[in-house]
């Protein structure tokens, strides 16, 4: 923690423990990891959707319950939801400035992403196993 006169951190920020926790690049790193993963996964997802377009319930379910389609969907949802959670976090941090509104919006983002992600994963597993 720097206390010298040239520090750009304000005394208030220091009191609130704002600043480096030595994990500042974690979100940036995982954004890149999910980005790279999502390039092939997105193309696979589009391919899968195209193979299901216009099919009736039975045919669509037969395709989606396959081992590879299920795995593809699980990976796509996992990487995609984590990616969008990080992306929305940056948007919130950029545009929502009030201390309480920022905390609550970030919390809502977490809830939304986990809820949507879990709902999709549950549905994919149920399509595959039931």
């Amino acid at each position, binding site marked *: 923690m720097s206390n010298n006169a040239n520090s750009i951190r304000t005394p208030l920020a220091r009191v609130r423990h704002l600043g480096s926790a030595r994990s500042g690049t974690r979100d940036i790193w995982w954004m890149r990891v999910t980005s790279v993963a999502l390039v092939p996964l997105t193309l696979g997802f589009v391919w899968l959707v195209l193979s299901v377009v216009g099919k009736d319930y039975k045919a669509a379910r037969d395709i989606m319950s396959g081992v590879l389609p299920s795995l593809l969907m699980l990976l796509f949802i996992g990487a995609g939801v984590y990616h*969008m959670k990080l992306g929305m976090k940056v948007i919130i941090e950029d545009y929502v400035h009030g201390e309480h509104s920022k905390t609550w919006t970030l919390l809502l983002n977490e809830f939304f992403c986990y809820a949507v992600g879990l709902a999709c994963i549950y549905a994919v597993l149920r399509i595959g196993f039931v």
Partner: protein
Amino acid sequence: MAEANSVSGTPESRRPLSPHLQIYRPMLTMMMSIMHRITGGALYVGTLLLAWWLIALAKDANAFAIANGFLSSIIGRLVMFGFTWSLFHHLMGGLRHFVWEAGHGMEHPQREYLAQATLAGGLVLTVLVWIVAYMVR
């Protein structure tokens, strides 16, 4: 960079000011940056549609018919077209960021080409996928 009041004021007001969005003339690179965010936000909301469709498929033929009925309606098709374009535009924008992170494409003509490629690539892929979708259904 604009100069803030140099001596007086709180520490916050003495920090250097960054120029604000309104003073820029709209440029393609800037529009692509903004569109990357907007398409990202659209995809965020769009996951609700994916979740609905997957849950309907997991549930039964009735629920699936309702979800499919909406998605194949005019409004549903428009939404899905927007979703497809958002997906591809965001994907192209992501590839552009990979190029930048490798340390390339930041100079004047290259970054304009990249912005144009992002826009064109997203549109072309969207139209291609929809042509295929209408052919296979």
